[in-house]
């Protein structure tokens, strides 16, 4: 289902606010919970780049990434207000609830997107600014306006937008995005489908009502559980690859091995049983897994445990 005409400022349900918009409603448009994960993974990319950087400019880079993610969230909420109103999980968002007008969300999204990309380009570097602009474009246009309503592979391809922040952070620090940065991107990219499908298993009715072709709606729950298992089996070994390139050390190896095994185990259990509790458990664990994986990298690099140096030291002996 393609939305035919975006409601820029057209009179709609939201044209007459049900309650006065509070500043917190505009913050909600920026999807702060998504933003926090984006900031965390971007910070990880920035630190792992191991390039000396002025702390003020590093802070500005993280701010730009956070604001850019918020802009993409506001544009998503602007475009998806019609389907958000039909789903239990999203109907209390500021636009469908009538607290913020569509046009205001659009203006906020465009303004913040321009602000974040421009500031990143002027204060940090153009590679990071270009990657940030591409990330916002991919989420707001490719995922939200195109893929989400047309294909059950929406979150597979669209997941790239959420996966890119480590590369943006890496580019902010070093001006480039080498293989290790793209490994981090690949991990989040493969992590996204099982994470979202586990969530969508419990919200199938919502997506059906809204006409969003999520995998459980189009292919059924059994197929979705199989897809989750396949992606989890790819993710578990992929999570270990930073150890091979020297990006991750012993702590990272332990977290990736145990976490990957746990992830695959929960996915296998979900594939066997038709339990909503198992889906929720996998969804919760997926967040913990990604957070711990990146936290391990962050700790190793901040604590000065440089795996590449260790390997070089052993080889030199």
């Amino acid at each position, binding site marked *: 289902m393609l939305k035919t005409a975006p409601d820029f400022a057209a009179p709609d349900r939201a044209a007459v606010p049900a309650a006065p918009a*509070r500043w917190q409603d505009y913050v909600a448009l920026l999807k702060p919970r998504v933003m926090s994960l984006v900031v965390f993974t971007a910070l990880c990319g920035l630190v792992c780049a191991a390039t000396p950087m002025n702390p003020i400019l590093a802070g500005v880079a993280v701010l730009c990434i956070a604001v850019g993610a918020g802009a993409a969230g506001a544009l998503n909420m602007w475009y998806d207000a019609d389907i958000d109103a039909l789903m239990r999980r999203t109907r209390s968002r500021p636009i469908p609830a009538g607290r913020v007008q569509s046009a205001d969300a659009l203006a906020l999204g465009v303004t913040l997107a321009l602000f974040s990309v421009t500031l990143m380009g*002027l204060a940090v570097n153009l590679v990071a600014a270009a990657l940030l602009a591409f990330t916002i474009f991919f989420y707001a246009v490719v995922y939200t306006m195109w893929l989400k309503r047309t294909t059950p592979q929406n979150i597979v391809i669209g997941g790239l937008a959420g996966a890119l922040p480590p590369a943006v952070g890496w580019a902010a620090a070093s001006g480039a995005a080498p293989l290790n940065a793209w490994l981090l991107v690949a991990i989040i990219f493969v992590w996204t489908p099982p994470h979202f499908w586990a969530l969508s298993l419990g919200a199938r009715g919502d997506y059906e009502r809204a006409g969003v072709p999520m995998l459980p709606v189009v292919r059924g729950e059994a197929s979705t559980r199989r897809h989750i298992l396949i992606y989890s089996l790819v993710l578990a070994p992929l999570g270990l690859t930073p150890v091979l390139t020297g990006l991750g050390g012993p702590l990272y190896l332990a977290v990736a091995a145990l976490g990957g095994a746990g992830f695959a185990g929960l996915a296998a259990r979900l594939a066997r049983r038709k339990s909503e509790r198992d889906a929720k458990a996998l969804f919760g664990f997926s967040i913990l897994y990604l957070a711990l994986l990146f936290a391990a990298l962050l700790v190793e690099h901040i604590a000065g445990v440089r795996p590449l140096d260790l390997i070089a030291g052993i080889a030199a002996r």
Partner: protein
Amino acid sequence: MSDPKREGEAARKARRGRNIALAVGLFGFVVVVFLVTIARLGGHVADHGF
């Protein structure tokens, strides 16, 4: 524009909150631009031989 006198207390409080948030945001922007300017120019000024 609505007549402020006819606005309810909730609307007035909400507008005041939005205005304060906007002021904080604008002030934050000024601070960011100042700090970036110092960070980007600082080294160059120090390197400049007078």
